[in-house]
């Protein structure tokens, strides 16, 4: 134990190591604070949905109550959905800053609504967030390089290497030093994160997994530093070589891979879905309304015994052609989604070779802020939207009046 204290004193007496560890600690706390602030902001935004939403619906209800028309209620009522941040979202904001986490939908065509974004400042999103994932993936390796590039070469350049090697247990000496530096880095990195993660109620399994991944990532860079150190170059050459490796692994190869993946896996642009859906929806005005109803009833026989359309406008026709429009692009929607998933899977596969990519993928997965989580949110929206439609159809297709009190019966989005 005493020897460890000696090594610790030796490490902390070196100005570079002390400054590096202090800086990393500061950044680590800052990253956790910044990530938590962003997640809190998102939680707050979700928490305050209810009040304005209710007054909005109340105003619509007061107006619709005069006609008791379920169609107007369906047309004018927007229903909020939201994607509450997971307990670990603070550690890896992932896509949450560019993808909407609140989306209001109404019972019209969903394909014209589900791709809408929220308001965000693109210039702020461009450089990426300052969160724990960024600190770990991008900055931590630089600190590994600072602490490990001269592990052996520094002793050699100071002339101490021969004497140290002549001591009994010289091998243990290096192991001890590696272990100590690793432990210090890991401690400084992991402590703020762990405290914040426990505080936000994350599961022990996920926390341990992230800590293990962080440790493995650090060990990867340490192994690389030791490998370079074995070449017997000077400390300066080691530092330059390691910094080049960092540049290539964290910046150059991922950006190159991004270009390659997007080229290799073309994704039918979402725009094409929007264009096709809008054509389908609007073409309903050009064809006999009965034809639309026939197509609708074919896939939704449960409403088929609804009274036939009269000469005047009826919202059940309007909602029906919206749904038929949605259904007509279902194939394109599936293909679009599959394309996105293929791109994502390609990047994840790359993560097995490129540790920075692998770690980022793992962190955003555990934090539920990746594409998969976004798609899962879309699935929940789709599910909710189906309930919305069924709810309004229950009035429209049976010509039940829709009064003020019925607004409260509308399905409510439930966050998992």
């Amino acid at each position: 134990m005493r020897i460890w204290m000696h090594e610790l004193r030796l490490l902390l007496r070196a100005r570079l190591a002390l400054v590096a560890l202090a800086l990393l600690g500061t950044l680590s706390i800052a990253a956790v604070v910044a990530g938590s602030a962003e997640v809190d902001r998102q939680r707050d935004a979700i928490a305050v949905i209810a009040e304005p939403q209710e007054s909005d619906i109340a105003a619509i209800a007061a107006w619709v109550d005069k006609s008791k028309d379920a169609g107007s209620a369906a047309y004018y009522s927007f229903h909020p959905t939201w994607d509450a941040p997971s307990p670990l979202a603070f550690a890896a904001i992932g896509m949450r800053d560019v993808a909407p986490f609140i989306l209001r939908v109404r019972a019209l065509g969903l394909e014209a609504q589900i791709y809408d974004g929220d308001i965000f400042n693109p210039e702020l999103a461009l450089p990426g967030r300052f969160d724990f994932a960024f600190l770990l993936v991008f900055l931590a390796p630089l600190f590994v390089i600072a602490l490990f590039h001269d592990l052996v070469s520094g002793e050699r350049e100071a002339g101490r290497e021969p004497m140290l090697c002549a001591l009994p247990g010289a091998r243990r000496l290096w192991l001890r030093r590696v272990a100590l530096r690793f432990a210090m880095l890991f401690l400084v990195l992991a402590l703020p994160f762990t405290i914040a993660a426990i505080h936000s109620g994350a599961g022990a399994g996920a926390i341990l997994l992230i800590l293990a991944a962080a440790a493995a990532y650090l060990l990867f860079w340490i192994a690389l530093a030791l490998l370079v150190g074995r070449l017997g170059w000077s400390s300066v050459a080691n530092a330059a070589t390691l910094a080049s490796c960092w540049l290539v692994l964290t910046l150059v190869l991922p950006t190159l891979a991004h270009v390659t993946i997007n080229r290799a896996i073309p994704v039918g642009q979402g725009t094409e879905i929007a264009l096709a859906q809008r054509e389908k929806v609007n073409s309903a005005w050009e064809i006999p309304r009965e034809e639309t109803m026939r197509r609708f009833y074919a896939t939704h026989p449960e409403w088929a015994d609804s009274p036939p359309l009269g000469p005047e406008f009826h919202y059940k026709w309007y909602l029906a052609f919206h749904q038929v429009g949605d259904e007509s692009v279902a194939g394109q929607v599936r293909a679009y989604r599959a394309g996105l998933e293929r791109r994502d899977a390609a990047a994840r596969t790359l993560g097995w070779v490129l540790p920075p990519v692998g770690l980022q993928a793992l962190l955003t997965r555990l934090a539920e802020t990746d594409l998969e989580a976004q798609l899962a949110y879309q699935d929940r929206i789709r599910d909710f939207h189906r309930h919305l439609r069924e709810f309004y159809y229950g009035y429209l297709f049976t010509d039940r009046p829709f009064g003020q009190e019925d607004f409260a019966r509308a399905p409510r989005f439930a966050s998992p």
Partner: protein
Amino acid sequence: MPEPASASIELSGVSLSYGAHRVLDGLALRVDRGMIYALLGGNGAGKSTTLSVLLGFAKPDAGAVRVAGLDPVAKADAARQRIAYLPENVALYEHLTAIENADYLLALSGEPKPREAIVGAFGAAGLQERAWDQQLGGFSKGMRQKVAIAVALLREVPVLLLDEPTSGLDPRATADFNGLLAAVRERGTAVLMVTHDLMSAVDVADRIGFIDAGRIVDEVAAEGAERFDLRALHDRFANDVAAA
């Protein structure tokens, strides 16, 4: 002279080649307890390689090596437990004090000692008291050697290996150091010093070996009060090298 006990350092028929270059060529030498052996030779004669072999850094192609009865390659840790080694430039941790350095080196060797013991050894090694708690940044080579010798004394190692200990020391520091070595010998330690400083060797060694082209070409033991005949030695040294 203490009676010749079991040899603390023994090399016999040691050969070692780096590629086509034969560095050691049937080297044989023996250092007993309480003896100072000076190994003299020119550049490239094989002095440093001899030390490497004794420290277990290099494995000989042929021959037997025993340090305190142990094979330094096969039983590296056990052998190093019994060796103290001072390189030509004793480099220690500049940002630690003398006591902290000693404390740390002892801990590294797995033989921690209390502060009183360290201070005692510093006294024995002749390190001035005001230097004890100073950071090593401003220490001279002689002072660093004293710290390292103090550590060797505390570790009570049977074998002390020195690489050019007096190069770069002024005459007074050299005399100091030689006095210290004599004290080490009195404890029964076997000392092997590698040097090209004939004067220093003559001053302190019990036996002087001349190494050239990887083997001992001549060996002289100290005799009587005069110990060595310096002029004769100088001539033999020059002849040996010329003959080889």
